[in-house]
Each structure stands twice: as structure tokens, then as C-alpha cells.
């Protein structure tokens, strides 16, 4: 289970970082979203992975740590709000600047051509 969990987090982080380094706002937003999923899973794992852990005291010998769950809930809510803001901002930037490049202007034609052939 640990390996699978770690692989999931690693894969999500790698995809997120790759997408965040793209030049247009939409892939960047998706990349940030994936990164925040990875982070949320990671926080969840900081309480140690634990099967069939009890939540109520005095019912079992094996308890789950409740704090990471509270933390992850907070992180999800904040991440959600921030992503919503970023999406609106990206649309605003598309309208204001006339393109969806993060720098507000498309790169020089030479680079653009290379990007297209990829």
C-alpha cells in the first residue's frame, strides 16, 4: 500500500510540475490543481497510513491520527478557493492581454514554430 501511495503522489507531482512549466495559463492551472492533489495526499500520509484505525477513544488498540484529516480538509478548501480565483484571473488575463500566455505576449516566432513541430 505504501509503495502504491508513494507512486501516486510522485506521479501526480511530476505531472503537476511538468504542466506548471508550460507557457499557457490553462495547463498551468491544471498543473497547480494536480500539485495540490499530490500535496493533499501527502498531508494525509503524514499521519501514517493505517487500515481499520478507530476514531473514538477506548474502542480499539489501533487509532487513526485525526489531525492530518483536519489539516487536509483545510488545505482542500483553501486550494479550491485559490484555484477558482486563478481560473477567473486567467480568463481576465485572456481578455485583457489578448492571449493566454502567462507572460501576456506570445513568444517570438522562432520559438513558436519549434513549439508547434513538437
Amino acid at each position, binding site marked *: 500500500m505504501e509503495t502504491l501511495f508513494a507512486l501516486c503522489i510522485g506521479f501526480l507531482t511530476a505531472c503537476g510540475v511538468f504542466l*506548471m512549466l508550460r507557457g499557457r495559463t490553462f495547463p498551468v492551472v491544471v498543473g497547480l490543481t494536480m*500539485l495540490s492533489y499530490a*500535496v493533499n495526499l501527502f498531508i494525509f500520509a*503524514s499521519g*501514517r497510513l493505517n487500515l481499520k484505525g478507530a476514531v473514538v477513544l477506548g474502542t480499539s488498540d489501533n487509532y487513526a491520527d485525526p489531525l492530518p484529516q483536519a489539516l487536509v480538509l483545510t488545505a482542500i478548501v483553501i486550494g479550491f478557493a485559490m484555484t477558482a480565483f486563478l481560473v477567473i484571473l486567467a480568463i481576465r488575463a485572456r481578455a485583457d492581454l489578448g492571449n493566454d500566455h502567462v507572460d501576456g505576449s506570445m513568444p517570438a516566432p522562432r520559438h513558436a514554430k519549434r513549439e508547434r513541430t513538437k
Partner: protein
Amino acid sequence: MNHLILVPILLPFLTALLIMLPPIHYSPQRRRWLSMIATALLLVVSVVLLLTIQQQGLTFYALGNWQPPFGIIMVADLVSCIMLCLTAFLALGAISYGSAGEDEKGSFFHPLFQFQLMGINGAFLTGDLFNLFVFFEVLLIASYALLIHAGGKNKTRATVHYVILNLTGSAVFLLALAILYGTLGTLNIADMALKVTQLPDDNLMLVKAGALMLLIVFALKAAILPLQFWLPATYASASAPVAALFAVMTKIGVYALLRVFTTIFGEQAGPLQGLANSWLWPFGLATMLLGAIGVLASQDFRKLVANLVLVSVGSLVVLVAVQNTAAHAAVLYYTVHSTLICGALFLLADLIATQRGKAQDRLVAARRVNQPVLLGTLFVLCAISVAGLPPLSGFIGKVMLLQAAFGANGQYWLWAILLLSSLLVLIGLSRAGSTLFWRVSGMQKAEERVQPLQLFAVLWLLSASLLLMVFAGPLTELSFAAARQLADVLGTIQSILPGSGVLP
């Protein structure tokens, strides 16, 4: 329990809500006055809190009466109270300037401003790392919206960069928190400082990784060298009162560095003691130098001021790395000075830009400003103070910095670079000043005049420099007391976690 600690957070929060209610929201005058009065009240509360803490020593407030280490606590010590007073002082200047007309260029200026104050105050007061993250997000989301206030292409572009960078920073912050929680089992700062002493050896590398990730996040907020590229464009494109308030935002990063790397990884941390110093020292020096070069290279005055912010951040970070009481006292004094003066310069840059017509604040020959004597005098005073010439507060701050570095490893590097960057700043400012005021092309004067509220705002911030000079004695004593309290990690742990037993 002292309920006063919560007031600096609740007051801006309730004010923001009140401003959005119809009877106040629909009247610009009422919005302005309520916002200004509340900020003045915030200043009073902060000063009262500072005086109380000075008498009582470190005090904390346990939310919901959940005792630490289980609940979230708000901690007020001298360092956080000084930062609270600084924020309120700066905010009053910025909000007065904004109330002269800038606030009507977009919607919800005052509520957003108050929410940002709430976030900043919360970040200074919290005694819990996850809560610090939450308050960072509160102040960030307000700052995103404030940054784009009044709109325009430049602002949109700068905001996109700023938001994406800070969201990435938040992700790294959360990763660091998860690592630290997973290894130390707590997020209460005092408890973490205690747990670090009992750390088993096999977790050492993990904690170190978490701590250095925190360093990355705070370096991004404070704009230290490899992570500073966002700052000049962002600050230069923000509207004047927002840029003035943002002068304190980088200092929050410095404050967080101070908090984490002197309390949690302080003298009691054994092998982890001072693990950030070897990073902060060279990058701080480089930031200072790069900022000074940026001052020389700036094409417009606002970018120049933004680079001045970088210079001050660089010198503060280097002193954080020195890790002794004198250095921390110097950091506190210099933070107060540099924040207020940079705020004043941002406001002044806007005043100059409005009077120069199309050229705005670009450093080219343009028409004469309408009130050259007034603006010129203000400019000279600001420049003297920020460059560190006697007699204003910059000089005292710089002397404290130089004295604190005396005897530190690599002291000559610090002295050389600090003095060189001061010289570069001086050259850059004199060049900018002579271009702005003396290189006039003979076109007719502009109509704009400085409004009373705007003048008040600049004078208010500038008066701080004067006060810091006149009351330099008591204020340095205060910052030394604060630095001693900050360095007394064991005392902090004892007063927050009295049941924790005797420490090694």
C-alpha cells in the same frame, strides 16, 4: 487569559464586514472614514498590546480554551507586537492615501484592505505553523485582489505571475508542514522547539528537508535572490496605497524566517541548530548587491523603489543568519525603518507620477512637476533616510547592522557589500532625483496638486523616520528586549507548555 491578543485580528475582520453592509457600502465617504478610524484604532490597540506585553512578558491566548499543545494558540511577544504596531502605522498611511481617490478606481478596496490587515496581523500573532499557513492564505487572497485593483494590462500580467508563484509556494509550504508533522508530531511552534530536542537520529534528515522547504517558502515571500524576480514588476505595477502596504509583505517572510529558524531550530536544537544560516548568508548578500544594481538600472522610479525593498530584504536576511541578540535587535529596528520609508517612497512615486503627465514616473526628461518645492523636499528627506545618511533613521539602522555583524564570520564581506550597496543606492537616488525634478522640457505645468490626505499620508510615514531617530534610545532598548525574548527559547517553551518538565 488575555483577550486583547485577538483584537488585532478581529477588528479588521469586523470592520471589513461592516464596510460591506449597505448603509456604509453605498457611501464612499462613510467607507473611507470607517476604514481610517478602524485602522487608527488598530494602531492604538497594537500599542496598548505592546505596552501590556512589555510589562507581563510573553502571553498566549488558547482558542476555545484548548490548552497547548493540542489547541491553536495566539502568541504575543515583543517581536510580534512590534510588527503589529509597524503594520498598523503603515496601514494608516496607506489607507489615508487610498482615501484621497485611489479607492474609487475599483470596487471593494477598503474591505479587501482590512482583510489583508487581518491576515497580516494573524500571521504575526499565531503560535501554530499550520495556522500561519492559513493566515498567509488570508492575506494572499486579499493581496491578489488588491494587486489587480484599478485594472489595466500591467496589473493583470503581474497578478497572474504573483498568484501562480504564491500558489506554488503554498503547495511547498504544505509539503514542508506535512513532513514536519509526520516527524515531530506537532505543529505548535513552542512544542516543535521542544520535540526537536528529543528527535531520534533516523528522522534527522527528514526534519532537515522539511525545514529547508520552509526556508524556500519564506524566501519566496521575502524575495531572496533566486526567488526575487517577481518582486520589482509586481510592486511597480500595483497602485500606490497597495504597493505601500505590500512593503510589509516581504517583511512577513523575514519575520517567519526569524520565528522558525531561531525558535524551532534555535540553540536547543542540537545538530539542527542554525541550519538555514549557511544558505541565508550568501543569498542575502547577493540579494543586497543585486537590489543595488537594480536601483542603478531602473528605468522608472517605482521599479527603483521596488529594488530598494530588495536591498533592505537582503540586509535583513543576512542579519537573521548572524544569529545573535544584537543582530536580531538590528533586524527589528531596520525592519521598522525600511518598511515605513519604502511605503512613503511608493506613495511619493505616485504623487510625482501624477504631476508629470504622460512621462509618469519614467526617468526621462518631461514636463515640470506642479509643486517642485514640496515634492522635492519630501523626496530628499526620503532619499536621505533610505540611503542611510545621517541624521535620519536609516543611518542609525545601518550603524546597528554594521555593529551587529562585528566579530561575525565573514564580517568584512557584509561590511563591504552593505556599504557598497548603500553607495549604489545613493548614486541611483541622486540620478533619479535630478532627472525627475531638474531635467524638465519646457512644456507647461500640469494642473494636478497634492491633496491634503495624500500629503498627510506621506508625512505620516516620513514622520516615523524622524521619531525613530529622536527616540532611538528607547526604541533600540525595546528591540534589544524583543531580541532577548526571541532568543530565550527555553523560557518561551516554559511559559507556553508549563507541564513539559525541565529541558536538557
